[in-house]
């Protein structure tokens, strides 16, 4: 856990309700200074609302927001010194780029000479010097985005809040801008909170990710941990492309051995018996999860691998350049597998299917939390 000292922002039991609809519920969060934190989740999960509450553009219904230990929950945005980059940039289109950048300082009555110096400094670092005297409405998208960022940087805010700023870019350019953003953040050393619904984006950009679902925190962790140890079914199925395979199974014991069973399909998981029984506490139904990229065709090494009792049948082959996605039928379950692009799989082919045991994920059927 981050220690008290470099905690920049803290959210405590944050809650926001709009006309009876609960947008954010029971959110606790500590933001470390200097980190790149991503808010990730599907539309309507409350990530933008949370961001706006940090900025002061929305007031929480309950709970508190702290900035450097100071309670700012009801403070208007003007007094918070946060930078906010809007999804559609919200530039002052009737002003020039220079005036846009200078605005934050102008309203603070900074001397024109100082304003000039600072604006030019920031413009240089974001390569905007050439367009300083263009009207904001004439710019192209990527320039607008840089102006939006630059505008927030001029006032030297404590934290930068970005609301899906790359949404308007077509895929190729988007990846490129992602890289630029990450580079700037590291270079500037500034704390950034970045809202996105694109899990790939969050995984590549974030030092930590807050995954949100229906207004609640689903998991707060580094990308790696989220990938390897999803805390619940939602996170497991949201992260990863193609998403994790999830199969409903039943746990049974036969003498010494423990199995996961689904009709005639069985999986021997005896090495995990103790752990599972402790976590299950009497339940027998579970959800088995395994990522498509961890599945493998036989033959398998002796140790640490498990194999399904039934063979898998290839239902559909979807070739991409470097990989292939296979739709498999195993028993009555449909799962996906990722293999190398050159692997010679054909529709209708049968083969034994297995995966490393430590790659297994088990989820409680009702709480949907990860066991193990």
């Amino acid at each position, binding site marked *: 856990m981050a220690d008290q000292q470099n905690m920049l922002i803290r959210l405590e039991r944050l809650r926001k309700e709009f006309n009876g609809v609960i947008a954010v519920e029971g959110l606790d969060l500590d933001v470390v200074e200097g980190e790149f934190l991503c808010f990730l989740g599907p539309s309507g999960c409350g990530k933008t609302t949370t961001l706006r509450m940090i900025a*002061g*553009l929305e007031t929480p219904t309950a709970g508190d927001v702290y900035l450097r230990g100071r309670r700012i929950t009801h403070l208007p*945005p*003007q*007094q*918070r010194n946060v930078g*906010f980059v*809007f999804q559609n940039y919200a530039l002052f*289109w009737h002003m020039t780029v220079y005036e846009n950048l200078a605005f934050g300082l102008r*309203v603070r009555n900074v001397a024109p000479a100082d304003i000039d110096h600072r604006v030019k400094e920031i413009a240089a670092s974001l390569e905007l010097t050439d367009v300083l005297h263009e009207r904001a409405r004439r710019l192209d998208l990527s320039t607008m985005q840089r102006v939006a960022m630059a505008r927030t940087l001029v006032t030297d805010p404590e934290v930068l809040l970005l609301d899906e700023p790359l949404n308007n870019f077509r895929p190729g350019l988007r990846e490129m801008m992602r890289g630029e953003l990450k580079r700037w953040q590291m270079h500037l050393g500034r704390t950034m909170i970045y809202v996105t619904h694109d899990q790939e984006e969050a995984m590549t950009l974030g030092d930590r990710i807050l995954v949100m679902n229906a207004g609640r925190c689903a998991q707060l962790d580094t990308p790696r941990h989220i990938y390897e140890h999803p805390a619940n079914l939602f996170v497991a199925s949201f992260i990863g492309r193609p998403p994790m395979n999830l199969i409903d199974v039943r746990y049974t014991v036969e003498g010494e051995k423990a199995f996961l069973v689904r009709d005639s399909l069985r999986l021997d998981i005896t090495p995990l018996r103790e752990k599972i029984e402790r976590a299950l506490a009497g339940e027998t139904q579970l959800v088995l999860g395994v990522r498509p990229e961890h599945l493998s065709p036989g033959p398998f090494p002796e140790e640490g691998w498990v194999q399904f009792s039934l063979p898998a049948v290839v239902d559909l082959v979807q070739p991409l350049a470097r990989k292939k996605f296979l739709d498999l039928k195993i028993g009555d379950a449909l799962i996906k597998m990722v293999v190398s692009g050159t692997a010679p799989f054909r529709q209708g082919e049968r083969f034994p299917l297995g995966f490393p045991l430590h790659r297994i994920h088990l989820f409680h059927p009702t709480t949907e939390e990860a066991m193990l």
Partner: protein
Amino acid sequence: MTEYAPSLARPGVRTVLSRLEQKLSSERVFGTALIAPMQLLLWFLLIIPTLIVVYLSFVRWEPRMGVDWWSAPFAFLGNYARVITDTRFWAAVGRSTGIVIVAVTMEFLIGMGLAFFFSRPLPGKRIMTSAILYPMMLPWVVVGLCFYLLFLDRGPVNYALTQILNRPINVEWFKHPPLAMATIVLADVWQWTPFLFLILYSGLGALPKEPVEAAMTLGASRWQIFRYITLPMLKPVILIALVIRSLEAFKIFDVVFIMTGGGPGTATETISVYIYRVGFVFGQLSYAAAMAVLILILVTMITRVGVRPLE
């Protein structure tokens, strides 16, 4: 079509082509037919009369002369010369302009204030905004009547003033030139502030919210946001509203006619009232025509200047 071998050209293509041709020419015919009634009306009621007015301004004609208007003697620029040296004319222009400046400014300021007041959430806002709009809808004459009754001798306004100032006040509003003007301006402001309010309110509502939020995060106070963001973005709307209202205010007639009849004497004689009197009371139609043409030119030129910032 000739490039393709006949066997490739399907028989249907020719029919489609000719149908298209038919459609195009019938479109033209159709279109012309549709605008015909309007063209008729325009020419009959607006364009030809304008030409006649221009013609009339170059002759000397009064109906009581007993001559048909087309055989009236030519006066060339005589009428115009007379207009330009007519102090009463220029006084009327001055009054109309004065009314425009004072009334429209007030309407703008109050309307703007109202627009801002109502742009924040308020219970019962819809009913209140509805109520505020209705002075615009009343017949001009009723507005005139209304204010006439208000400013009567021993009427409510005088009574209210007496109560407020704690002295017996019984101003004869319609007998003193500046006071009479004041009542007219007041009537116009009461009737038309809602118009300015409406346009500014709609404009405010149509403004995108995000730049305002961005300005907030950058530390701008409400006043600063208004001055640097809201107002500049509203400029086109404000301009149009002012131009429209000013043009109408310049032509003010009904209210003046009802409340003061142009009096006392000529104290409230606006340009429309003066032209009316010259043309329809004194019967000097060609002189009135010359005045109308002159005013028209003046107004067009000024409108051009006012509208240029929009382009």
